[in-house]
């Protein structure tokens, strides 16, 4: 192989070289972008759960409360028994479980959305510790409350005030900014889980709809091995019944409704098409190149180049072209990915995971988790595409070797 000859061919045959490089680079860029988009949507689908420190959330729908008085369960989240939680904790692939109790409390002059939380569990709503804007987070063993800052402003609640929820008094020790917090399990008031459990156990209205024992909860936040999320979702339904609402990243992905989010199959099919287009472009260019250079190949053979010499020369030209196309494709993909990174994604939160009663102001509105599309080109994908482009070059050159071998100098040099 003569490197100088190779570089001269690429340099002086600019149109041919640029057509090949541009065509293939677009195929490579398409492959990278499609996969990066798919990964970005998958990552975005993790966001609503990730911000609550979980991979899966679980709740069980039940009956609508008969009377909107005192503490009741939202119909979307009724009792999950302690024994069921213990079974879930024993499932393979579970790395941790966070528990919470969501209540609607209807006092004579005010309605509260109350969330009982485990203060020291990093899985679940206690992750909101970082969203405290004033005061402090609730402490273990103390009967105290955190209030959502907008709610506090609306009702003139101040730090250090005492609020009465379901006839029990709680000092307000801090405010939480819900706009910065997770869209799942937001509430007006955050209490220690034990206090909320006591409130639920003593509510006759709640018991009449969904029998409840102290220690039971109605929201579970589960951290799990990533590859076991799907089988775990099925196991959870086996324990809690088919009607249980088990939210996983996949369920948010489906809600996104984007083509890229719909299925792995779409991305796979689109990637395959991009690869096939890239191969066809490389093949067509190379085949055209050989047809156009038949006389030149004839001369090479006439002056003593063996088939192997000629094939190696043209194969290396193809590999270098594809190598350059790989670099260009990667650059195009990086630029496009940078642009797409400014795109906003709205992930709808299903109504049954939104804690606000539909009959309260804002309760019927669809809520979204909005974030910038977390698109990036992982180095593994970049490397794969780059290697693929070189393989395409090599493959194309090698496949056309037979065509090169068929060229007879006596035929192509006959003028004359």
């Amino acid at each position, binding site marked *: 192989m003569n490197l100088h*000859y190779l570089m*001269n061919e690429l340099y002086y*045959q600019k149109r041919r070289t640029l057509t090949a490089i541009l065509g293939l680079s677009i195929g490579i860029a398409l492959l990278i972008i499609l996969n990066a988009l798919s990964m970005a949507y998958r990552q975005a689908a993790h966001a609503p759960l990730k911000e609550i420190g979980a991979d899966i959330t679980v709740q069980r729908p039940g009956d609508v409360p008969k009377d909107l008085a005192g503490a009741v369960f939202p119909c979307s989240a009724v009792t999950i028994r302690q024994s069921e939680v213990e079974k879930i904790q024993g499932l393979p692939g579970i790395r941790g479980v966070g528990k919470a109790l969501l209540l609607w409390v209807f006092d004579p002059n005010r309605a509260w959305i109350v969330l009982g939380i485990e203060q020291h569990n990093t899985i679940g709503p206690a992750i909101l510790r970082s969203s405290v804007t004033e005061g402090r987070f609730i402490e273990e063993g103390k009967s105290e409350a955190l209030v959502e800052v907008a709610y506090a402003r609306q009702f003139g609640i101040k730090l250090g005030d005492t609020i009465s929820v379901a006839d029990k008094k709680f000092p307000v020790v801090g405010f939480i900014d819900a706009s910065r917090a997770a869209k799942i399990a937001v509430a007006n008031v955050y209490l220690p889980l034990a206090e909320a459990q006591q409130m639920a156990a003593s509510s006759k209205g709640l018991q009449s709809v969904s029998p409840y024992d102290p220690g039971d909860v109605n929201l579970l936040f589960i951290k799990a091995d990533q590859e076991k999320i799907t089988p775990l979702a099925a196991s959870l339904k086996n324990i809690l019944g088919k009607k249980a609402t088990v939210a996983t990243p996949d369920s948010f992905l489906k809600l996104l409704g984007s083509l890229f989010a719909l299925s792995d199959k779409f991305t796979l099919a689109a990637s395959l098409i991009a690869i096939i287009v890239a191969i066809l472009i490389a093949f067509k260019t190379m085949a055209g190149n050989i047809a156009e250079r038949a006389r030149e190949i004839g001369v090479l053979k006439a002056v003593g*180049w*063996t088939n192997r*010499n000629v094939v190696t020369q043209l194969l290396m030209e193809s590999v270098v072209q594809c190598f350059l196309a790989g670099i260009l494709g990667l650059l195009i993909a990086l630029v496009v990915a940078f642009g797409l990174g400014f795109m906003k994604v709205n992930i709808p939160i299903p109504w049954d995971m939104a804690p606000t009663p539909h009959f309260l102001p804002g309760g019927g509105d669809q809520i979204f988790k909005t974030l910038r599309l977390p698109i990036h080109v992982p180095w593994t994908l970049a490397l794969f595409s780059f290697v693929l482009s070189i393989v395409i070059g090599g493959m194309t050159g090698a496949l056309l070797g037979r065509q090169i071998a068929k060229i007879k100098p006596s035929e192509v*040099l*006959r*003028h*004359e």
Partner: protein
Amino acid sequence: MSRSAILAGEGLSKQYGSLEVVKGVSISIDSGEFVCLVGKSGCGKTTLLSLLSGLERPTKGDVVLNGKKINGASEDELALFRRENVGFIFQSFNLIPTLSAWENVALPLFPIKMTAEERRRRATELLTQMELGHRMDHLPSALSGGEKQRVAIARALVNRPKIIFADEPTGNLDSATGDAIMDILNRLHSKEGVAILMVTHEVELAKTAERLIRMHDGEVIS
């Protein structure tokens, strides 16, 4: 075949389908001999040259080049044999458009293990002999027809061949330039002792050769 023969064809025939282009031709060329093959267009001259140079395989007959029977050799064996023994000059020069003059001359040497300096030295030497020392780095597109053909002659000589096959080497040139090319070929033959088999349809040009072989309708007639 005589002891000094460099090339011999025995009973050569070439058939394309039902069309027989070369019909049982026997020919012999001695070392250092300048032979012209003349005849009208389509009489089979170029085909005979292709058969004798190993570019094409005969349907019948044998070719012995530099003491080796070549018609049973594989494509790659033939290529290697041409690299070591044969030089070609074509009517349309057939220079590689993306290579400079010296690189075109060195083209047969590219597959050979040799330093780039040595290749360039050999090409420079030949181009200087062809009075093209000042055009070494020019692309073919920047050369005149006569210059292109001189580059092609230098290329034919770079592997120090025993015989040069020239197919209408002046066919694309004006008469003055054609005469100059013929002078170079005559000089090569007389000074370097290279055997030349030249195909032409111009009888006047052929008269400068030592021996004339006439072809008609695929057969040698004299």
